[in-house]
Structures are given as structure tokens and as C-alpha cells.
């Protein structure tokens, strides 16, 4: 039995197999399924809008997402149908209050960068792109070809069908640009392409075009095109594929079964790697590991190449757990004494290099347990020469335990220089004696001490400055005080903790929703967690549960938003 079948079976056994997996929240709204909507029929009647499954107090506002850099790169590549590689600056991102990256407000500099990017992209479209092919201007006519291009490219770039007035406006731009800037047909197409790539309809994810959202009893049920985009940007960091567009056109993205089937199909597609990579790099705050600077005197091995391998290892490992031959569980993610390494990392781990780089490699189970004992995490949250238990502990506390920390004190007192020969742990313990520091450090340092066997580049060590490593400590979790000798002992207990499992589900929820959780999400989050639990804490099932939850496809009207009743 392959792992997918096993997972599906588990889930359905747990929930009862008839009528889809989510009987508790049977959500089969009456979209006029079967009717295709080519988008220009202007039929906006309320008849084809399903009854929401949520009450008005069970839905939250969805902030308008702007494509992040990661999404922009993948979207342009997928639009082009070929890798779109550029060293141009992209519009800036910011870390949102939910802890994950989001597209930042577009400043003038960002607008300029976007213009440059659009020009580079349009140059690619011009040179023999399949996007242009089905129309020959010499027989069909140049304006007619421009119009067809706008409709076809727009369907994918705007992730919906264009309204007739939008097509007209873009064709006018084609004609105007040709006239004022003395352009030929191809250059005119390029000009239109640039306008579309800079358009808010491309850059922001709200696939309604000129229409206002439809409200039913205080709830906005997302339009099928919006649901398709939500699925594709969560799972693939990019636009929908043809199958998903077709499902949106057929209004076949409404029931939980339909969404579940799409999600499973999309998880099996190689593009799902993008989600797994993006989530884990952001969750563990290791996006910048490949450019981290280490003290090369202390660590001659710490080359740029090694730092790059660290990032690749964690990407490959997360994919292996969630999308590959791994068992998909949170437990495996946090405890596997296995990783996917190349020769450089094998040397760091002290194991033989695998025949093929980045293939599963057994590690010493007394030294390593899961993603938190991988060099990317350990080195990213360390200094250049020394480990940094406070920083590692702070990251673990916030990202794995969802425990916020109070703000730092008014005046951080000058640090006392370390005594000669003191270990890192002793230095931090000394620092935490100061009453002004103790409050935070007693919350975060013990967690960080659990990783003291790992130096600033993630190598395993038995001693520091001639003193044996002390990685022991204790942690309050699930109402108990856990004592541990090191992360290898702690990791399985973290993986088995209800608190940690809930936090991981919450982090995925934040990532998928692009916002922090709110009270109104309680129904959805309870359902998601129960499904996650029933699956044996299978992370793939967690994704499926999130996309089929009401929070994913129903929202509250935004304050001041223009709506159709």
C-alpha cells in the first residue's frame, strides 16, 4: 500500500467514509455546476452564488495579498512556460504580523523595479513565445491578434476572464503605444504585456475584475476564480494550471470533495515543492542561511558552498517527509535520524557521502533528530564563531511553541566580558543572573541549551573549551515539566506534545491564510486540528484540511468594502 492510499484510508476511517470526509460540516453549496461561465456574459445575478456554510460571526476578513517575490518569480516562469531568470530587483516583501512573508506596500522604488521587471519579461514574450503563436498578423490583422493575445494572456495573468471593457482598454493601449512611441506590432504586444504585468489585477490576488464581491448574510463566499488562485498560490506559489482554470470555469471548486480532490492532485505535482520549501524556510526563519557569514578561522569548512548546501538539505528533507518517501508526519519531521546530504554535509555530519547527492542518508541517532538538528537551523540561529542559545531558544519558543516573548527591557545593561575559558552556556547563565535579563532568558535559554551539542555551523561536539557539553534542561509543556538531556531526547517529546502539534497547525494556518488566526476561525481551526489528529498528525492531511475549511473560502466583508447584496 503506498503512503497516499494509506493516508486517505486513515483519514476516512477516522471520519466515516460516506459522502466525503467532512460530514460534520457537509459543504455542498448549490453553485450552478455544469454551467460554464466565460466571464463576459455579465450575469452577476445572485442565483449562482451558493449559500455560505458559515455564520457571519464565523468568518474573518481576508487581507488583500500582493504576490511575494517568491510567488512573482514562479508566476512569471509559469506564465512564460520557461524559466524566467533575472537578477533584477523585485518589489519588496515584509514579514507580516502573522510571522510569514507578505508583499509589501509598493513604493516608488518598488514601482520602478516592477517596471524594469515587466520590461524584461515582455522581452521574453516577444522572442518566439508560444503565447504569441496562434495568430498571424499578416492574415488575421494586427489589432485582431493583439485582442486575442490580451484575452488569452489575460486569462492566465489576471487568473480570470477579462471583461470586454478591459480588453478594449488594453487594445487601445496597444494602439496608442504604437502611435506615440513608434512601435511595430511585436513591440506593441510587449507594451501591453508590460501594462498587464504591472497591473493590480496581476499583482494582487483578488480575481473579481471590475465586479464587487457578493455578500450573503454577512458572509462573502469566494468566487471560483478566487478559490482556484487560493489553492494554486498556497500549493504551488503560482497561478492555476489549465485543469484548475477549467474547474473554476465549470464552477467545480465548491464542495469539500472537489477541493480535496484538487488539493491531492496538486500535492502530487512537483510544483508542491515550492510550498514545502517556502513554508519551512520561513517558519524556521532560515531563508538567509545561504548568505550567512561564519568565522572562517574557526570553521575553515564554512564556505559559501557549504551554507548553500545547508539550505538545500533542509528543503530536500522537508520535501522528502511531506511529498516524497517519508511518512508525512510531524513526528518524522521533528525526529528522523535521517537527512538528505551531499559530500560537504556528509563531512560535517561525519558520515559517508551518499552515492547521489541529496539522497536519504542515515545519521547517528544519538546525535541527530529531525529538522531542528540540521545545520541550516543551527547555523542560522548561531553567531559566526559561537552558538547562541538565546537566539536558538527564542526561535524555538516562538516558531515551535507559539509562545510570544515580552519586549526587551528599557536599557540593556552593558554585558560583562566572559571569563577566560568559560563555555557559551556559562556565559549565558551568567548573563541571566541579572534581574533585568532573567525574565526573558529563563524562558528561552533552556530550550536553546538543548542544542548546545551543535556548534555555530551545526557540527556535533562533545565538549567546548575542554568542558563536556551540558545540553540538559527542563521545559514546561502540556501542564508538565519535562526534563531532558539534549534535543535528541527532547525532540520526540516535542513531536508528541499537543501544544507543539497545535502550534504547527496554527503556523500552517497562518501561512495558508496570509494572516493571523482570529476568534472567528475557531470552527475551522477545530475542524482542521481534529482532522490532523485523526490522520496521525500527517502534514499532507493538514494541508487538505485547511483548504477544505470554511476559513479558506469564505470571508467577512472588509470594512468599507463595496459589495453586491
Amino acid at each position: 500500500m503506498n503512503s497516499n492510499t494509506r493516508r486517505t484510508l486513515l483519514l476516512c476511517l477516522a471520519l466515516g467514509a460516506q459522502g466525503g470526509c467532512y460530514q460534520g460540516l457537509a459543504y455542498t453549496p448549490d453553485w450552478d455546476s455544469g454551467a460554464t461561465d466565460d466571464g463576459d456574459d455579465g450575469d452577476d445575478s445572485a442565483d449562482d452564488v451558493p449559500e455560505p456554510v458559515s455564520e457571519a460571526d464565523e468568518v474573518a476578513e481576508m487581507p488583500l495579498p500582493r504576490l511575494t517575490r517568491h510567488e512573482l518569480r514562479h508566476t512569471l516562469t509559469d506564465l512564460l512556460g520557461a524559466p524566467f531568470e533575472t537578477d533584477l530587483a523585485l518589489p519588496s516583501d515584509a514579514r507580516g504580523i502573522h510571522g510569514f512573508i507578505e508583499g509589501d506596500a509598493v513604493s516608488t522604488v518598488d514601482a520602478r523595479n516592477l517596471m524594469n521587471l515587466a520590461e524584461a519579461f515582455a522581452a521574453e514574450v516577444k522572442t518566439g513565445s508560444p503565447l504569441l503563436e496562434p495568430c498571424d498578423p499578416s492574415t488575421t490583422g494586427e489589432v485582431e491578434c493583439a485582442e486575442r493575445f490580451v484575452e488569452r494572456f489575460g486569462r492566465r495573468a489576471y487568473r480570470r476572464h477579462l471583461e470586454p471593457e478591459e480588453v478594449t482598454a488594453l487594445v487601445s493601449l496597444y494602439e496608442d503605444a504604437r502611435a506615440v512611441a513608434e512601435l511595430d506590432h511585436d513591440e506593441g504586444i510587449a507594451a501591453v504585456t508590460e501594462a498587464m504585468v504591472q497591473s493590480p489585477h496581476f499583482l494582487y490576488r483578488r480575481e473579481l475584475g471590475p465586479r464587487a464581491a457578493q455578500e450573503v448574510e454577512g458572509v462573502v463566499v469566494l468566487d471560483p476564480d478566487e478559490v482556484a488562485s487560493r489553492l494554486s498560490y498556497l500549493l504551488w506559489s503560482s497561478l492555476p494550471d489549465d485543469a484548475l482554470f477549467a474547474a473554476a470555469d465549470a464552477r467545480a471548486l465548491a464542495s469539500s470533495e472537489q477541493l480535496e480532490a484538487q488539493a491531492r492532485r496538486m500535492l502530487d505535482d512537483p510544483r508542491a515543492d515550492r510550498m514545502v520549501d517556502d513554508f519551512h524556510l520561513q517558519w524556521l526563519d532560515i531563508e538567509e542561511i545561504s548568505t550567512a557569514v561564519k568565522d572562517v578561522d574557526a570553521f575553515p569548512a564554512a564556505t559559501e558552498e557549504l551554507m548553500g548546501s545547508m539550505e538545500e538539505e533542509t528543503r530536500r528533507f522537508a520535501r522528502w517527509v511531506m511529498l516524497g518517501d517519508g511518512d508525512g508526519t510531524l513526528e518524522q519531521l521533528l525526529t528522523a535520524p535521517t537527512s538528505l546530504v551531499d559530500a560537504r554535509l556528509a563531512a560535517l555530519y561525519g558520515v559517508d557521502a551518499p552515492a547521489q547527492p541529496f539522497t536519504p542518508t542515515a545519521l547517528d541517532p544519538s546525535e541527530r533528530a529531525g529538522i531542528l538538528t540540521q545545520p541550516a537551523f543551527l547555523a542560522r540561529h548561531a553567531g559566526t564563531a559561537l552558538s547562541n542559545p538565546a537566539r536558538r531558544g527564542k526561535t524555538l519558543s516562538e516558531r515551535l511553541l507559539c509562545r510570544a516573548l515580552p519586549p526587551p527591557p528599557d536599557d540593556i545593561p552593558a554585558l560583562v566580558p566572559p571569563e577566560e575559558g568559560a563555555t557559551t552556556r556559562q556565559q549565558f547563565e551568567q548573563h541571566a543572573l541579572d534581574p533585568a535579563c532573567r525574565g526573558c532568558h529563563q524562558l528561552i535559554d533552556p530550550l536553546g541549551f538543548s542544542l548546545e551539542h551543535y556548534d555555530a555551523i551545526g557540527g556535533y561536539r562533545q565538549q567546548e573549551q575542554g568542558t563536556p557539553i551540558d545540553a540538559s534542561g527542563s521545559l514546561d509543556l502540556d501542564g508538565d515539566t519535562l526534563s531532558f538531556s539534549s534535543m535528541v531526547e527532547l525532540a520526540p517529546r516535542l513531536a508528541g506534545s499537543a501544544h507543539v502539534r497545535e502550534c504547527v497547525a496554527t503556523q500552517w494556518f497562518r501561512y495558508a491564510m496570509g494572516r493571523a488566526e482570529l476568534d472567528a476561525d475557531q470552527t475551522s481551526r477545530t475542524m482542521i486540528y481534529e482532522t490532523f489528529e485523526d490522520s496521525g498528525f500527517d502534514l499532507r492531511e493538514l494541508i487538505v484540511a485547511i483548504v477544505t475549511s470554511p476559513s479558506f473560502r469564505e470571508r467577512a466583508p472588509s470594512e468599507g468594502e463595496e459589495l453586491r447584496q
Partner: protein
Amino acid sequence: MSHFHQKISRRNLLRGLGASAALIPLLDQTEARGEGDDGFPCRVVVIMKTNGVIRQHFYPQGEGTDLTQLSLPAMTEPLMPYRDRLTFVGDLEMRNFTDYPGYGAGHENYSCTFTGVRGHEIPNPEPTAGARFTGGGPSVDQYIAQHLGDVTPIRTLNLGVRVEEKAWYQSRCIYTAADQWVTPQNDPRQAFDTVFAGVDPDDVGDPGLALRAARRQSILDRVGLDLESFASRLGRDDRDKVLAHLQSVRELEQQVGASDLSACTIPTLGEHDIEQNDDYPKILEAQLDVMVNAFKCDRTRVATIQLTNGNGSNTVFSWLGISGPGQEFGIRDYHDIAHRPGDMDQDKIAAERWYMEQLVALMERLDSVPEGSGTMLDNTIILWANHMGNGGAHSSNELPWILAGGGAGYLKTGQYLSMGGAPTNGVLRALCEAMGADPSGFGDPVYGDAIAALRA
């Protein structure tokens, strides 16, 4: 946020461009204030520094307020020959931050250094994300730019040297409005493109430039219309975000316009790699090159430059021979230097002294441009700001700010003013006055008015 709602028509934009780009003095711009007696416009440069200083090595030494009679210690010694061209404003406090309930250590205040209102903390379920602490209103440069309007093609030139790309409270201090930060341009090449519309020295006079500009304007015009209609149905918060984007596109449309660059000296930028720490001095030099040349042909009158982040941890002063493992942090970077215990820190002295040499370099460059009976330095007001006073403690008081240049006759130079904990708004409002913007509209009035002693 009313400025976001101003609809700037394409026609007006083009008219503005034709009128303003080339002519200095701007005889037909009667509404432009902040001008000197010779009719040259006043420019403002706001420089943001981090990590504080060591008081006894930075503050003027001796009795009295006549700076020209005082000596400057090791860090500020490079300013000695220019004591009559600047005023040292010591012992300021960033009250808009220290009044904040439960304010923390002095990195957070970076974001509200130039806004003159309390920082804005956005409730955060998970402060790893960086307790999101942002400026609560427009920064002083943006406020002044709003007053000046479209008198120049570029409202503000917001530059940086190795400022972190990630937007958070330690990397953003320029705001157009509450929570809406401006990303600094770290790349002199981009700054160059902004100022000179991508025109290289070799391109001047190329007729293709006008066609390229017309093409870009047609496209951006369409994008602007899309943004307008897109914004109209959104909820309030989303709409504000999209309208800010619209404003950016309108400004870009103006910048890319085929303006007359004949009054400009288009500089040739030197080679540098913005990713390389060691290129920091070259990057800074190139940024100042772009800035001064932008002033010379009146492409802008308002410039800001952020020198590293609000912590300096991405800067190692390798060119001063300072590197290697840190004393408290992993590496001997600028942040590690600031935290170094004790007062006799030669690395800190060397770093701050180097920065003062850069201020001198900017002053000398401005002073080399004759304008009327004086120089461009006389028609510029430079604010050298630091969001920390005592570097080791990261304090928000004892701030030593420096104002340099004549401010087109506004600034009384040659002074040492000890402010006894007065709020920094006194300086920020003085900048507004120097530029002809209503100081009473800037910042929170509880933090006082412009410091009278700064007026000539």
C-alpha cells in the same frame, strides 16, 4: 493621507516637468518657498545613523555655546575646520519614543526617529515577526515633500547604504504616512536611474530617449487607471495600500518622463558591488554623487540616506582594519562595536570618526558648487541624526544631532546647543521651517515647536 487622493492628471504632470526640470533659479515658481536671497532653492538632506556614540569622544569640549571656540574630541575632530558651518545640538531626547508605554531597548525607536509622533505598535500574535513597530505618521522629509509638491520631478530621493531588504522596525525610518514605509534605494545604479531617468552620460541627446519615455508613460498611465478602479471597491485598509501604490506609480510616471536634463551633470558611477560589505565606502560615495548632482539640476530638493540598519550588524569596518570575531556577538561588526563595554574603545572611535569624515566629504562637495554669492552648502540644510545617544546602553536620550549648511539663510551655525532632554521634534520642525513648510502641522504638538536658537 489626503495626498493619496490627489488625482494628478497626465497633462498636469507633463506641464510640471517642462516647467521645473531645467531652470535654476526657478523664477516662475513663485509658490516655491524655502529659497535664499539669491533665489536658489533650499535643499534638505536627512542622514540616519545608528548605534549612538561615546559622549566624551563626541560632544564638544569647553564652556559656552560658541562652537568655534570649543574643541571637538576624537570622533568629531574631522569637523573642526567646519565648526562655523554647522550647529551641534546635544542632549536631545526622542520623547515620542520614551513616552511610549513600556518602551523597550533603543532599537525600536529607529522607526519613529523622523516622524515626530509616537511609534505605532501593531498588535502581534507572535513577536518573532518582529514586534511590528512602525512610524506613526509621515517622516519629516515626506512632510516637506508634500509641501513642495511637484516643484521638482522627484519629490524625495530616499537612499540607503546596506540597509536590510527585509522591512521591519530596524530597517525603515522613512514613512509617507502611518505604517507606510519607504524602502530606501541601496543601489546607486537605481538611484541614478531615478534621478537621470536611466540616461547614461553617453546617451544625452539620443532621440530614442523621448520615445522610450513616451512608451513608459503610456503604460504607466494605463496601470494607474487600473489601480484607481481596482482600489475603488476594496475595504478601507486594502484601499489605502492600493492607493499608496497608485501614488508610487504616479511619481514614477513623472520620473520617467522625457524631461530636459540639459542642466544636469550626469555622473559616471564607479564600480561597486552592493552585496559586498567592503564596498561600503564606494557605495556611499556613489550615492552622494547621485544626490549632489540631483540637487545641482534641481531634480529633487529632498534627500534622505540611511547608513546601514538600525543595528549595523551587517557592517564590518574592514577598510579601517576592524574585523574578526566579536566581543559579544559573533563578529566584530558595527553592533558589536557599539556594545563594547568600557569607554576607551578605539574601534568605536575609529568608526564614528570615519562617519564624520563622510559628513565632511558631503559638506565639501556641496561647498564646491557655487550658487550666487555663496555655495550650494549655504543653500542646503543637512541633518545628521542618530536614534541612540549612549551606544553601549542604546539609550534614547543624550542624542547628539548635527545640523550643517546654511539652510538658505535659515540656520544659525557655529553653535553648540545643549538641549537638556528637549524632544527631537524641535529639530525636525526647524527643518520644516527652513524648507518653508508649516512646522505646526508636523508631528505631535506635545513635543514642542522649532528650536528658536536654530534660526539665524
